[in-house]
């Protein structure tokens, strides 16, 4: 098995073997999470920092919970979206992190590429991308895979279900770091991905993207879908520039109660949250047993524990890059 990479910047950093490794390690941490005392000493003595230039309470809490359950020391930096205004460059901020002696830094930034740049400036500290601009959000894609595998029975049999699985991703693909990570993640395990979006919310080019098809007709693809993954539509996108109105968006792309009846039995619905009820998903659809939205959140902690373990766990499967 190839060594786990030094950083997790993009789903492209992980091959199929590494993805499966994350899922399998996460199984043991799901088990830990069920204990009365859900804490293990795995990362005792290691220091992890969250560096969120863009606010995200949900993702930051998930990472910090993961690190604390592994007994790491956790520092939380919230430098705001523009460190330049404070007179400190991004590079200075990143290099300070290393000088403090931090082992792993979890970065979220509104600008694509910041985690990659940070990784280039750091010698001894692993970088985990917690979402950069429109680019990537790899742990979100990994927890989606984990959740789908679990919903299809878990373990090797759940994993085997990805082969030929029909995954439909609906919504604002253009501006979505989640979609970019999901597409790579699902296809790495053998799934076929269909994108459904108004053409204005597709990327300008899909050259080189491993997608099977692209359509503007959600009704055509829902009956064959095994997984429907919805993306949040930001209200400003529906204010006339990308789509005329949110009402029109919902009519064409929303997972309404009517559309939910078109799903085959055993199909599942995912959403990275926070959901905008009544826009991309009807409130009652979000409450269906097929909707895995809360499973995604709870699995997020275990999957992030797995990623931290593989990147920082000294003398174990990961950590091979340092020295």
């Amino acid at each position, binding site marked *: 098995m190839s060594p786990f990479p030094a950083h997790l910047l993009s789903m492209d950093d992980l091959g199929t073997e590494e993805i499966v490794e994350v899922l399998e390690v996460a199984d043991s941490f799901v088990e830990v999470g069920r204990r009365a005392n859900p804490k293990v000493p795995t990362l005792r003595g290691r220091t992890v920092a969250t560096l969120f230039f863009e606010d995200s309470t949900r993702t930051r809490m998930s990472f910090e919970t993961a690190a604390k359950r592994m007994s790491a020391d956790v520092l939380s930096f919230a430098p705001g979206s523009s460190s330049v205004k404070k007179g400190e460059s991004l590079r200075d901020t990143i290099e300070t992190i290393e000088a403090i002696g931090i082992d792993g830094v979890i970065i979220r930034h509104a*600008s694509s*590429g910041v985690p990659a740049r940070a990784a280039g400036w750091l010698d001894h500290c692993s970088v985990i991308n917690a979402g950069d601009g429109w680019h990537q959000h790899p742990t979100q894609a990994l927890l989606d895979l984990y959740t789908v595998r679990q919903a299809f029975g878990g373990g090797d049999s759940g994993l085997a279900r990805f082969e030929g699985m029909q995954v439909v991703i609906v919504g604002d693909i253009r501006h979505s770091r989640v979609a970019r990570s999901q597409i790579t993640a699902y296809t790495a395990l053998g799934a076929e991905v269909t994108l459904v979006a108004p053409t204005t919310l597709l990327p300008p080019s899909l050259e080189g993207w491993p997608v099977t098809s692209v359509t503007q007709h959600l009704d055509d693809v829902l009956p064959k879908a095994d997984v429907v993954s919805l993306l949040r539509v930001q209200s400003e996108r529906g204010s006339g520039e990308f789509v005329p109105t949110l009402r029109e968006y919902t009519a064409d792309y929303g997972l309404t109660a009517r559309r939910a009846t078109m799903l085959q039995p055993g199909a599942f619905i995912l959403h990275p949250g926070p959901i905008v009820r009544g826009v991309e998903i009807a409130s009652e659809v979000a409450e269906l047993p097929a909707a895995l939205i809360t499973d995604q959140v709870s699995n997020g902690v275990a999957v992030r524990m797995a990623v931290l373990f593989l990147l920082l766990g000294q003398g174990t499967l990961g950590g091979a890059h340092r020295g």
Partner: protein
Amino acid sequence: MGHTVGDRGESVTGAGPTLVIRGGTVVDQSGERRADVLIAEGRVAAVESRIARPRGAVVLEADGCVVAPGLVDLHTHLREPGREESETIETGTRAASLGGFTAVVAMPNTEPALDSAEAVRNVQELAVGASAHVAVAGAITVGRAGERLAPMSELAALGVRLFTDDGAGVQSAGLMRRALDYATGLGVTLAQHCEDRTLAGDGAMHEGAWSSRLGIPGMPAAAEEVMVARDIALVRALGARMHFLHLSTTGSVDLVRRAKSEGLAVTAEAAPHHFSLTDGRTADYDPVFKVNPPLRPQADVDALKAGLADGTIDAIATDHAPHAPELKDLPFDQAPPGMLGLQTALSLAISELDLPVARILALLSWQPASICGLDPVHGGDQGGAIVPGAAGNICVIDPTATWTVEASMLASRSRNSPYDGRKLTGRVRHTVFRGEPVVIDAEAQR
């Protein structure tokens, strides 16, 4: 030697050292011939097959080298006044001289913008004693804000021959029409940075496969092309003349090619980075590859090379745009666009373009000199043939020498060269500016 400022901003030189450029091949508009060149009192005194060294003369060895009129850059950002931490007139013109340039056109996007007689005069005075002639480009509109015309006649009286709001295009077609109309009466040339803001939006790179994958907002080729097309329509309607700055797309080159075949008075330039780098270089999110117009795909690179080869594009212009290192350590979408270019332009042209040296020199010397009115035909002293009596603005180029770019060794105050570590062919050996050797054996003398 004493400098004074002439009535058009040019520096007038009195006496100077006596130089013999020995052993080279003179290449200029009239062709090429093996000849030594004697320079005395700031001017070419003799061009003969063998010139004995006069007593006290400095000999510049040119064996195997090309002796050419000094290069002229139509597009330089010197940053002074306002951004002296990135570049000054002194450091920028030193970089120019090391790149073989004896004149640069200083873009008006300084702080304050060069939109008034006072601002223009200030730069002209700061440029006295610089290592190359600094021709000031004036802004088309006040503050480059695209709202009302700058006092072009007043600036023309100070010697300004080229006007542009570079960094931005004039967005209003109506205002651009008035500007072209007014400029025609003054006999000056307008130059446009073609970019429709409504299409370019927040774009930080070329919109295409790479921007989509990297998740970086893109600016489509059409953002440039719609303004090229618009301005060609205005030139046609008004009988005006116009220069297009840094063309970067296949469509723009095609539009200018057709406009020229119609006989319209349009000229165009291309920047070395647009014919030597592609948008894939942004894959690591390093803002040193961020520039405006952005790096484009290979098909556009090929179209620019074809345009340079067939005469559609008249000049290679650097768009030398220094930025202090901390600005290039910002996230890609926040970092300012721009690259250093003065010291690498000639070498990139020799390395990347499959053109004879005489064609490359036409693109870097006498054609740009003509566009900005610095050539002898317009009363200037740049880009003219190397004959007795001509101005002593000369560069000596070793076309086969190879060197490796080291960003940290460049003369600019900034380090944002995208060519760090790249091996190039062709190097400037000596530069003579108004009879003075400002570069000898690739070393700046000032």
